[in-house]
């Protein structure tokens, strides 16, 4: 079993954890920026900037992972699908609350973008961590 453990880790692991952490950090920063202005008008430029930076980090994590050799893709997709389902439900409920509370227009647009990225990034992080420790 120890030999199998060594076999799993003899390829260089892609550095995705840092990128997924950066994505979450940027989304959380955007959320704090917006929440700090509630219930007044929220200036959207910083929020759009943080969302764009988060999207770039998320895209970079896929790009880095796509080039990884010997990665357990089958396990990755299995975990990613189920985690995505869970986080899509969670993000959907939060989105419903925003709409229910009367958030509209560009504010809703940037919040929806952040929620979508949150719902994609956390499953990626979970699936990556599980697959990194597994063999297909």
């Amino acid at each position: 079993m120890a030999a199998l453990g060594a076999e799993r880790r003899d390829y260089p692991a892609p550095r995705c954890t840092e990128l997924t952490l950066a994505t979450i950090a940027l989304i959380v920063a955007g959320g704090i920026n917006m929440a700090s202005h509630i219930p007044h008008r929220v200036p959207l430029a910083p929020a759009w900037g943080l969302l764009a930076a988060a999207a770039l980090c998320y895209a970079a994590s896929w790009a880095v992972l796509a080039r990884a050799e010997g990665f357990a893709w089958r396990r990755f997709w299995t975990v990613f699908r189920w985690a995505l389902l869970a986080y899509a439900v969670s993000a959907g409920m939060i989105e419903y609350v925003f709409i229910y509370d009367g958030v509209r227009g560009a504010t809703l647009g940037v919040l929806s973008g952040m929620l979508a990225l949150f719902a994609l990034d956390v499953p990626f992080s979970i699936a990556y961590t599980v697959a990194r420790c597994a063999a297909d």
Partner: protein
Amino acid sequence: MPVKGLPIVVAVIGGLVAAIATNSYWALDFYHVVGGGLWTAIDLFVGLVIGPIMGSLPPPARVAFSARFMPKMSLIMPTLVTMTLGAGWQLARHLGFLYVSGSTHHWLLASYVVVGVMAIVALGLLEPANIAVLFELRKERPDPAVIERLMRRFIYTAGITGVMQIATLVIMTRLATI
């Protein structure tokens, strides 16, 4: 996953929904104080007491402890966090803390940052490690090296979580006495 614990989680979350829907000041305060107190205490206890003890145990003992500890934590912590934050937000609305012009607003902002840092650690590091440990434990012969590597994240992040929880205690006691 401890399936027996699920009805308790459902009951607790159901009570939270009822507290928010009825906007009961006592129920919201109860959920926020009880949830927050337990969250802080468990985080500090795990980080400062359980973590160092685990670090000194031989690997097979660590694996045996993790196998029993992690599934329970995967139910307890999300429930406590949901209780605390859901009731806390509604309580802040109730008390007028959300208004930017309010004297307490900067303390509230500080609490957003503290919760934000804890969310980054929890969602980006701890939850993936927790689930990966559960996957490893489901195997016929779990690899202790993999579990140990993943569990190290809990020890590394204990300091950050501890500082954030102490900051939470300062902010919340200040807010309650302004």
